[in-house]
């Protein structure tokens, strides 16, 4: 019998089992949640999800307005092709703040974000085929305190002041996005909608 098994046998009592379950939950919470979602929910209540460095209150009205205005000014430069790399970095920093606040305007769409990334990376994102980290702030004193997913597969590593330290590109995750969007109809379907067969939700829809 292996040492691990002997140790396991000794620890099989109520407390030992709880410890084992807790250890699995802490080691890989996502996988644990996949197999035992209801146990994970119960554990979440006892051990709340860490919120990281996020501000629980979000931006003030003035802060939000300032960020949106500054971003809009840079976007206008994109339209006239007058944008440089520093402007693009600044634009993504505004985007990061607004994303964290869940207030990025819908006009700032994926295509625009990819264009800004292209300016910063100095090549189209589609040309990156392996996981790559692009350093933006070269100074080693900058500590990463938060990460924001700009688009699936592109993460901004940020300082406390929301300056971009580096950009992580994961091509595998970028591909995942196309897969996740596959079931969404691309064109105006002439076919009947699935709700034609589901009267129960129609009333709720009408109410909304």
């Amino acid at each position: 019998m292996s040492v691990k098994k002997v140790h396991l046998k000794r620890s099989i009592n109520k407390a030992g089992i709880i410890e084992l379950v807790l250890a699995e939950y802490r080691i890989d919470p996502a996988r644990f949640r996949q197999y035992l979602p209801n146990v994970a929910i119960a554990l979440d209540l006892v051990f709340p999800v860490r919120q990281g460095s996020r501000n629980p209150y979000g931006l003030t009205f003035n802060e939000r307005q300032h960020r949106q205005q500054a971003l809009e000014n840079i976007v206008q430069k994109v339209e006239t092709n007058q944008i440089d790399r520093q402007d693009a970095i600044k634009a993504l920093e505004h985007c990061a703040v607004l994303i964290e606040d869940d207030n990025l305007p819908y006009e700032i769409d994926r295509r625009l974000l990819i264009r800004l990334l292209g300016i910063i990376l100095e090549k189209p994102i589609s040309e990156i085929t392996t996981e790559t980290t692009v350093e933006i702030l070269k100074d080693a004193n900058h500590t990463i305190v938060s990460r924001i997913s700009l688009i699936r597969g592109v993460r901004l590593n940020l300082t406390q002041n929301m300056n971009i330290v580096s950009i992580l590109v994961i091509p595998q995750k970028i591909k995942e996005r196309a897969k996740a969007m596959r079931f969404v109809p691309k064109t105006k379907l002439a076919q009947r909608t699935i709700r034609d067969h589901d009267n129960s939700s129609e009333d709720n829809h009408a109410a909304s």
Partner: protein
Amino acid sequence: MPLPERILIDHSAFCAILSSDDVNHDLAVQVYERLIDREQEIWVASSTIIKVVNSLHREFGIQSLLDFKDSIDGVMNIIWLEGIIYRDALALAAKHAGNDVAIDDYITCIVAQRLQAYVFTFNSCLDKMGIPTLPR
């Protein structure tokens, strides 16, 4: 408000995403795209999945159902409903007897509370029950 970490997608949101002539379709797709891009933790109740795949199968055949399954694999987490959730939903329905709310919505309400999740929905009654919802 800060970006929610965990989202539960309900049936009305799936209907709006899947039906291009739905009044909420464009907004639903925009919200869904953002959930995918932000890599937020997306959850779906098994009862919702069953309703969606059932409708897809009836309407568009087995291939659309398989495509849907392939599309959400690894992107969404499914919460398999246990008896205790139905029991709690029924208790909530009994407490709010007289309200014109479907039992499915009480189930969504209970699951959202347990997951501490926002609900991506176009169903206004969840908002009225005090559940945080998307789109805001």
